[in-house]
């Protein structure tokens, strides 16, 4: 492999050296500390921390809310990407430009805005309060915050694929009498599926770890709205670093599984 590809371009040693050094110092070594710290505790201690009822509840809540939010984002993400690439209408540019707002807006700002909007006195929360549905400080509120933060991931994963996909095939299917729904499912959907899965994975991973936009609307009530990142934060505030690290370790493993999944999907797609 080395012989076939002689390095005529200069700077290999320097650039790889800088890359590895910075990556190790800033990301890898600090991350390994999680494992080093946990190695100081027995497996029993670790296990009893992460299987504590409150912790299990927090994991489940985080997983369910992120999953539901990511699925909602898949539906609206496909619709938005479709509308943005296939239709021309007044305000399309503005709609397109707004998609990245969750990336640009600081999460704490989004968090307090959402909490206020969906509280019992808020502009939208008031309407739901009338029919007896509370949103702020409930899992519904958490899910809404995670939908907010996940929108750009799905839209921006699918949009380039749809842009490249020639509308001819869709037109051909329609001409031959396929219904619009069938055309979409049979012709378009298989093409965008890998991108959709990538977007879903990114939104899901972001949702699992999200803190800023969720912390305010969640309200941190144990067994009700305490998500895993909040639980870690709580342990750290009590200087219970071992407890926080144990809970974090499980989250890191979740994240790695998702990251690995995305990589496998991308590799399969690249080969196809």
């Amino acid at each position, binding site marked *: 492999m080395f012989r076939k590809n002689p390095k005529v*371009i200069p700077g290999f040693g320097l650039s790889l050296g800088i*890359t590895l050094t*910075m990556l190790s110092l800033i*990301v890898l070594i600090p991350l390994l500390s999680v494992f080093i710290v946990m190695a100081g505790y027995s497996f029993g201690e670790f296990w009893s921390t992460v299987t504590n009822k409150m912790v299990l509840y927090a994991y489940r809540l985080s997983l369910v809310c992120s999953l539901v939010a990511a699925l909602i984002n898949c539906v609206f993400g496909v619709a938005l990407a479709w509308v943005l690439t296939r239709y021309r209408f007044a305000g399309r540019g503005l*709609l397109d430009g707004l998609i990245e707002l969750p990336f*640009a807006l*600081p999460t704490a700002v989004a968090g307090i805005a959402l909490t206020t909007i969906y509280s019992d006195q808020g502009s939208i929360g008031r309407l739901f309060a009338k029919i007896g549905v509370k949103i702020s400080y409930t899992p519904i509120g958490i899910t809404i915050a995670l939908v*907010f933060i996940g929108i750009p991931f799905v839209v921006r994963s699918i949009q380039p694929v749809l842009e490249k996909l020639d509308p001819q095939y869709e037109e051909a299917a329609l001409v031959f009498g396929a219904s619009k729904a069938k055309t979409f499912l049979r012709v378009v959907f298989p093409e965008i599926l890998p991108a959709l899965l990538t977007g879903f994975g990114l939104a899901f991973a972001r949702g699992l770890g999200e803190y*800023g936009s969720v912390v305010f609307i969640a309200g941190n009530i144990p067994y009700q709205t305490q998500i895993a990142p909040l639980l*870690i934060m709580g342990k750290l505030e009590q200087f219970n670093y071992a407890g926080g690290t144990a809970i974090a370790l499980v989250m890191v493993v979740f994240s790695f599984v998702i990251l690995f999944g995305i990589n496998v999907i991308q590799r399969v797609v690249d080969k196809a």
Partner: protein
Amino acid sequence: MNDGNAKFDVGKWALIGACVLFVFIMLVVPLITVVAYALRQGFAVFRDAILDRYAIAALQLTLFTTVVCVAVNTFFGLFASWAITKFSFPGKGVLSTLIDIPFSISPVIAGLVLILVFGRIGWAYGFFESLGVKVVFATPGIVLATIFVTFPFICRELIPLMQSQGSEEEEAAALMGAGGLAIYRKITFPHIKWGLLYGLILCTARALGEFGAVSVVSGHLRGKTNTLPLHIEILFNEFKLTAAFAVSSVLVVLAVVILILKNIVLHRSKGEV
């Protein structure tokens, strides 16, 4: 493809309507809310909130952190993208995946790992203590946490661009005896400048707003280790809603400027390639 349909396309407009409604409720309403709440007690209250001593100190810390973070990540991004796209070496895929780790890790965990290294229980604590440098619950910790969280941003924008460009041009230039810096400036850089700018914008946005990671390592000392997002949290938790939204509106203005810049950059880069 839609122009051929003379009759009103119900499906199309229903879909557009649903999308516009979704974006309006999820994205536009929060923006309007911030501005409306910021100004609801009049301009004087708004002005006092953003000119508050602690708010200004927080803004300064946030800006300082952002500048350092963007500079460090740009340095890393330029070298890492060069190493990954211009050479083939064993373990390249793994390296590329490792760089992405901060994307998929909770910011709270990013803060936690810094405490595990530099905090009182951390193995690097003694070393920095002897140098008289306080990392955790001080500015260096805040800067490090922000760098960690935004680490892949610039690299991620550059790698696909440089990969699609290939490296034939650079190889030819090198064979003709051009030096590394000359190759970079004359050949590589013109191809990636818009991508780099795009990455810079995304990185700036995230660094300005980083909350979870910074919250863990900051120690929340007002006027000292409070960034603007943390200042907003304190105001909100003290039920000073108007002040919280007034300070937020400063960040909203920055966010809107960032979005506009991003769209200009994206537009320009599409025009040039």
